[in-house]
């Protein structure tokens, strides 16, 4: 379980491995906020290797999106599996984020 951060041009890509849940959400938040404070404005969080996101994890994505927008940036998401997409649809968070089928598509034209 962890987060892999890489740079793709101007875009910061964060890949979530394992779970994004109450026990590790602060770690993700801290990593993204450090990049934001360092000047990064374009973020993609990829869930291709993610098994599960709980409501705390969803909450941290909402919080990060808001903070990034406040700095004139944008957070996009990618690679939600069927279960994760169901959670986003149930909570209507699919209306709040731009969600791409893959990280490549998310990075394209960002």
């Amino acid at each position, binding site marked *: 379980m962890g987060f892999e951060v890489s740079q793709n041009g101007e875009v910061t890509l964060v890949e979530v491995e394992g779970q994004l849940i*109450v026990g590790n959400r602060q770690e993700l938040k801290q990593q993204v906020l450090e990049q934001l404070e360092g000047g990064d404005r374009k973020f993609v969080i990829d869930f291709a290797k993610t098994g599960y996101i*709980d*409501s*705390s994890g969803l909450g*941290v994505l*909402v919080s990060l999106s808001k903070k990034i927008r406040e700095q004139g940036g944008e957070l996009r998401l990618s690679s939600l599996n069927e*279960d994760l997409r169901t*959670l986003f649809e149930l909570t209507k*968070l699919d209306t*709040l984020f731009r969600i791409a089928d893959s990280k490549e598509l998310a990075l394209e034209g960002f």
Partner: protein
Amino acid sequence: MTHLGTLRTAIDGDLVLELPGDIRSIESTVEYVMQRCRTCSEQARRLDLNFRVGLTEALSNAMLYGNSHDPSKRVLVEVVLQAGRLEARVTDQGPGFDPSTVPDPTTPENLTKPCGRGLYLMRKLLDEVSFNDQGNQVTLVLRLESGGFLEGGVQA
């Protein structure tokens, strides 16, 4: 089992766990319960998604809000699988709350708030969600069309 807490009793396949007030125990606890629960394949997604999410949210709420992050307070988890019905009861040691006061997180004014989706997800994904009068115990029910069983032997 020590990282999960105490397996207090297990009678006739029922599972009872007493957890420490540590959010790091949630993931391993849910995984342990999921491993003990087995149903036929057509029920797998309802078990893996609906029950897993519901139980995780119930444990998070119990530790974060019910017990107010107090590591000295415990959370009791009771799981019963009967014919066609999987039931989990989660009890914290807090004062309880009124679930009717929790707002709908999907309304436009609440959609951008970081909190408030746990109970909503429980209600959306489980067939029954009920609270005791005090509001410190939630009972989740998932109906299983073809039944199932709790796997594993009795441990104490």
